[in-house]
């Protein structure tokens, strides 16, 4: 669905933000993009709806070369929710913010009304429908950005640092939304530092460092590899650290606290 072929992106200042990146993202996949600040994660993502065009190489989205498409046309299929909500919000009310994309993509009045209503309820924003987005808290603004993008039902959803400023209940809700989208065969791409959030979902994990992809494997093979972790300024999630301290093999590493519970019950014959 999204294909990067030998893509480099060089800023006007000469800084190489992406260096010969080749990677593909398929239908129904959950992919985490991780790496240090400044590794090129956001630059990579901005190529997915044509906001940035490669300096060298090709990016294809649903088979179309992004240099031949408008950002609007690509965004209809690839919805990106950026890290800083303030860069994305501009309407006078929360309701109009959600409407904006739908109207631009030419949905009928009925559908617009229905989807706005759904999004307001689903994200707990109903009471703010007529409030200015600027009056919302940081966490609420992020939820509004997500609501506005999900409302037009893109095939690929890209979330850049979605858990920043979100408390545990909203993170759990976000995880449910992601799982729901995956059941509908949507592709979900997460850029995140929040390893404790990512780990239980066991995404395919693309690790970036200095503009290159240095690993592209299942989470269980990334977060147990100390060399890759150090190169990308990552650390072990707590359950991985626990598994290592219990001297478990890489195959036995706990993915969730429930797996860990089962292991303890069996190992120590607790019941």
């Amino acid at each position: 669905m999204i294909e990067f072929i030998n893509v480099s992106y060089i800023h006007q200042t000469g800084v190489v933000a992406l260096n010969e990146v080749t990677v593909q993202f398929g239908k129904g996949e959950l992919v985490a993009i991780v790496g240090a600040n400044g590794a090129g994660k956001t630059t990579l993502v901005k190529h997915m709806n044509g906001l940035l065009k490669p300096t060298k190489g090709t990016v294809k989205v649903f088979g179309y070369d992004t240099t031949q498409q408008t950002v609007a046309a690509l965004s209809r299929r690839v919805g990106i929710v950026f890290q800083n909500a303030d860069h994305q919000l501009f309407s006078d009310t929360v309701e109009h913010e959600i409407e904006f994309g739908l109207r631009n993509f030419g949905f009928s009045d009925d559908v617009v009304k229905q989807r706005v209503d759904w999004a307001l309820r689903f994200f707990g924003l109903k009471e703010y429908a007529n409030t200015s987005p600027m009056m919302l808290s940081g966490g609420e603004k992020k939820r509004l950005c997500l609501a506005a993008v999900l409302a037009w039902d893109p095939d690929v959803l890209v979330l850049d640092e979605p858990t920043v400023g979100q408390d545990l209940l909203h993170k759990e809700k976000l995880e449910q939304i992601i799982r729901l989208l995956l059941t509908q065969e949507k592709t979900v791409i997460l850029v995140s530092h929040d390893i404790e959030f990512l780990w239980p979902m066991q995404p395919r994990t693309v690790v970036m460092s200095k503009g290159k992809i240095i690993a592209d494997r299942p989470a269980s093979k990334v977060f147990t590899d100390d060399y890759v972790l150090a190169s990308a300024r990552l650390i072990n999630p707590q359950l991985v650290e626990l598994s290592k301290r219990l001297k478990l093999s890489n195959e036995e590493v706990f993915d969730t606290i429930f797996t860990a519970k089962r292991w303890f019950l069996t190992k120590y014959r607790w019941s």
Partner: protein
Amino acid sequence: MPKIIEAKGFTFYYSGSTKPALSDVDLSIDEGEIVIIAGPSGCGKSTLLRSVNGLIPHMYSGTYQGEVYVNNLKVSEHTISEIAKHVGYVFQNPENQIFMFSVERDIAFGLENLGLPRDEIRERVDWAINLLGIREISLRAPHEISDGQKQRVAIAGVLAMKPRLLILDEPTSLLDPLSALDLINTVNRLHDTLNLTVIIVEHRLDLLVSIADRLVVMEDGRIICNDKPRNVLNDEKLLTIGVGVPSVVRLQHLLKDICSFKTLSLTPSEFVEQINEALG
């Protein structure tokens, strides 16, 4: 132990709101403590911080009852700039705080505004640069340094003012995990070296609980827990209100009915030690 913060029955309503943002808050923090303030979005954490650094009641209009004291100064009776001499505040996004052409100039900015003599400014800037280990970037422009470095520059700028209290608002949320860990270790070191009081607002507790003396949990404008992290995390109700309880703690809650642990472990290493001790 002298108190650095004392809130007594503090209630605050933002203008136009009928619901209090803070409700009858009593909080007393001793000099030299590291305190984490946690709680779900909208629970009043930011309002509490604003009441400590004087933005409430001086900048945000509203009505209040009760009082907040910082270093024995009644916040409502002193200007924000007077309170700022005691309270160093580091914002979540350091970009909101760093704006000069070089790191060094940025650290000097607050001191220049205090009207300090040139030599003292130079001395304090040097001191803060050494303290945070940012000598090699001191002549760089803020946009040329990493987010982790920006966070250090923001802290250096605040510490150069020699406050007794350092407040950090979600300091690790924008950092990669290793930079987050480095920052927490730095804060712990500063606390030890300077006997600094530190208040950290955080959703995620996994990296922080082991350095904190106290964990304060808020919900709906009230303080609902206020004790040592180990005691607070022992309470299962935390799991239902939206606090980012570390996985290793959640696991112990899951196992509680099956195996009783002597104390709650806060980190994987403590937990494994305890298991080995108990079961061999």
